[in-house]
């Protein structure tokens, strides 16, 4: 909403009253009853307060002078002798702390509990509204999921600012997903004890999402607030990574900071292998005839870079999870694949279990005993031994988890030890092995592609458009670009895993993380925020049901001019759920032709081009159901997105 939530209830009453008065006057002139009379909110009542039928038409309360002043823009801060009342706002310091942490974006839907902060974000500093830039979100769920997508793409947090109890509850599902995904997200919850809407406040504001946040604080002083922001950032980026929240009282935002100094920032410490273990691992890799490294999901692009360095130093063949999610080994690297010889005699897992030495960070289950105050029951939560990638096996070996240990932070020590062990003979042997692996992996890759393209011909010319054709037609258009596939592909065939090369830490951002819908579009906007200033384009193959949770995020993409190509996988149903119902009807022996009820999106069909147009997004002029029209449309879309604008193509598709 555009107006302050602080005054939302009373303002609505005032405006409705004004509208009703105007309408009543017009109706009297025309001699017809005013339809607004039937829609008036009873005096003193908001939602749920209206009586059922009958009775006289209620009269809207007259606005107070305070309301009139606010609605007419006549509210002014109290004058201070000699100049501004506040010369160094508390919120300016908060923004400076966030800026110093390198946060690029802050997404928020407006709310009166953080007007002090918002004003500082957009006005404070020599270059205001930059690092972070304020991103306008139309729903708090979108704001946090943007941060979710950004966090996956960059391996670091962006900020989401949430208004009180209502904003946090709007955001709750997306916080839950980021928690499951172990994605770093920094959040501020605004608390406004001076606001007129008591329902927006709580004694323990973060309590309602504590079970699925990693850390939270509700500081009571400005110095505590500044250090809490730094701590929240550190907690978010240390394993197990996750969403963190600092609840900030509006009074602290608006107070005079005086000469208060910014606290010094201390980077977090990560659990790493000790020197002895690093040496043992290095010996295992260097002395093996055929070492193997399984790479799961690392924390940041730097971890990926280090894993490449280790593999290249040791000539180890590697596995990757890059086709299933972010931050893993490049798929087309010459050492990625089964290699020339699959009888591995030493295996190392980097955030991947099952190896002779598996370095895996602490699982979420290590913090749930303390955090799960709502008794959701997270003790069995994923992560133990499986690495961030959710599993993986290095090959031979019975498995020996060394941990909890952060693989990325351990790599420098291991690499250092490897370099000490590399003699000229070892280097020659490793070079020969690397060449053999590279040849074998390239052959396997080409063979795999040749087999895959044969299968993708199925239904190629069928109408509606097959999902395989979408991914197949896209790849030649983007293979030489810096691209990111931001949307989950589990409902659209996952064809990219077979056809595309996933060589960057952000090539594919993976699934929803907790199976929650309404994820694809906002996560893609977050990924596009990450891409915007990096010469990258973002591809979102958007399922139709998923978009309809909070489609306002399309406007955010347009407003902030994001390089985002949205291709609708428009199958006009929730087909997985349709099949659940069909199956149940079949078991019960009735109505197997009625499964579409409640699980389809027809009558009417949704017009996504009009939806895009409503939000100001360019799109193809008409939905595409003829596959022969697809390639040209995709090229138009890629060309526009490369110029830094979002674009939508509505493709009527086969169900899966």
């Amino acid at each position: 909403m555009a107006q302050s939530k602080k005054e939302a209830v009373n303002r609505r009453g005032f405006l409705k009253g004004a509208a009703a008065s105007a309408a009543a006057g017009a109706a009297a002139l025309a001699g017809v009853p005013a339809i607004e009379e039937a829609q008036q909110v009873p005096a003193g009542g908001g939602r749920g307060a209206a009586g059922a039928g009958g009775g006289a038409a209620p009269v809207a309360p007259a606005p107070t002078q305070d309301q009139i002043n606010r609605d007419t823009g006549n509210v002014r801060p109290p004058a201070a002798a000699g100049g501004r009342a506040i010369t160094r706002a508390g919120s300016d310091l908060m923004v400076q702390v966030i800026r110093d942490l390198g946060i690029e974006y802050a997404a928020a839907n407006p709310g009166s509990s953080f007007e002090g902060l918002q004003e500082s974000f957009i006005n404070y500093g020599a270059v205001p509204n930059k690092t972070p830039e304020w991103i306008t979100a139309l729903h708090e769920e979108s704001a946090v999921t943007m941060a979710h997508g950004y966090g996956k793409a960059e391996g670091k947090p962006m900020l989401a600012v949430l208004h009180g109890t209502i904003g946090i509850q709007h955001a709750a599902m997306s916080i839950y997903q980021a928690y499951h995904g172990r994605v770093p997200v920094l959040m501020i919850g605004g608390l406004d004890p001076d606001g007129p809407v008591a329902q927006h406040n709580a004694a323990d504001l973060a309590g309602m999402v504590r079970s699925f946040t990693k850390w939270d604080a509700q500081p009571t002083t400005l110095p505590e607030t500044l250090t809490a922001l730094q701590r929240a950032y550190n907690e978010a980026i240390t394993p197990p990574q996750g969403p963190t929240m600092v609840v900030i009282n509006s009074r602290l935002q608006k107070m005079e900071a005086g000469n208060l100094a910014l606290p010094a920032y201390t980077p977090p410490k990560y659990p790493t292998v000790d020197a002895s273990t690093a040496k043992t691992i290095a010996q295992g890799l260097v002395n093996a005839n055929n070492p193997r490294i399984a790479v799961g999901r690392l924390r940041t692009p730097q971890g990926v870079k280090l894993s490449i360095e280790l593999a290249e130093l040791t000539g180890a063949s590697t596995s990757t999870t890059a086709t299933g999610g972010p931050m893993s080994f490049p798929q087309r690297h010459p050492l990625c694949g089964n290699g020339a010889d699959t009888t591995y005699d030493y295996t190392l897992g980097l955030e991947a279990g099952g190896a002779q030495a598996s370095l895996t960070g602490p699982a979420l289950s290590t913090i749930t005993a303390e955090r799960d105050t709502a008794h959701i029951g997270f003790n069995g939560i994923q992560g133990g031994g499986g690495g961030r990638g959710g599993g993986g096996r290095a090959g031979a070996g019975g498995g020996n988890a060394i941990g909890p240990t952060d693989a990325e932070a351990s790599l420098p020590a291991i690499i250092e030890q490897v370099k000490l062990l590399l003699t000229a003979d070892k280097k020659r042997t490793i070079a020969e092995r690397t060449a053999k692996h590279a040849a074998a992996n390239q052959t396997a890759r080409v063979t795999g592609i040749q087999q895959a393209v044969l299968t993708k011909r199925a239904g190629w010319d069928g109408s509606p458009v097959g999902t395989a054709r979408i991914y197949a037609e896209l790849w030649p258009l983007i293979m030489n670009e810096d691209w990111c596939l931001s949307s989950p592909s589990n409902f659209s065939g996952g064809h990219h895993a077979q056809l595309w090369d996933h060589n960057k830490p952000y090539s594919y951002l993976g699934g929803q993380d907790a199976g929650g819908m309404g994820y694809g579009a906002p996560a893609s906007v977050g990924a596009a925020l990450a891409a915007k200033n990096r010469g990258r384009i973002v591809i979102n193959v958007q399922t139709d049901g998923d978009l309809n949770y909070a489609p306002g995020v399309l406007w955010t993409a347009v407003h902030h001019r994001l390089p985002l190509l949205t291709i609708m996988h428009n199958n006009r149903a929730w087909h997985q759920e349709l099949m659940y119902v069909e199956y149940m009807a079949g078991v019960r022996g009735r109505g197997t032709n009625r499964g579409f009820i409640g699980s389809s999106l027809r009558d009417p069909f949704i017009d996504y081009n009009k939806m895009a147009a409503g939000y100001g997004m360019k799109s193809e002029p008409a939905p595409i159901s003829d596959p022969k029209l697809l390639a040209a449309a995709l090229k138009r879309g890629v060309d526009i997105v490369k110029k830094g604008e979002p674009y939508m193509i509505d493709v009527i598709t086969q169900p899966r």
Partner: protein
Amino acid sequence: MNQTSKITVGILIIAVVAIAVHAQAPAGGGRGGGRGAVANNPAPTSPATGNAVTGKKLYYDYSCYGCHGYNGETGARAFVGNWGNLQTEAGFVAFLRLRGDQNPAAPSTGMPNFPVSTMSDAQAKDIYAYIRTFKSNAPELKDIPALNAIVAGANKPYKP
């Protein structure tokens, strides 16, 4: 589906994908296998006695397309070229009745049961007649520029 089942499905998908990718990466990947495969098994030639026009409507009404695609070539179980239980009309009707006593604890996207109480033999035969009109829409590989570009791209050296 409710959130719990969505999460369960999501985790299962993630787990399956992760295992598959680790086992097979990078060649071929782990996802999408079995979808829309082009098989060369010839279409059945056994008699089809139903009405294909009526069958087309029934194919949509009973949501057959949800898993088999509008053309029988895509989705979770494409059957064009891989006819399996569609070899004969009688075999197809019998197949539809197979799972009447299977009540899965977890939500299932498996082939539903279609007992006679909800789909008559005549309707099943009409659907069969319609299915038998399906044929492959798969062009020759040489006629698909995008797929050839993908193969060409795979032959290019890796660039970090």
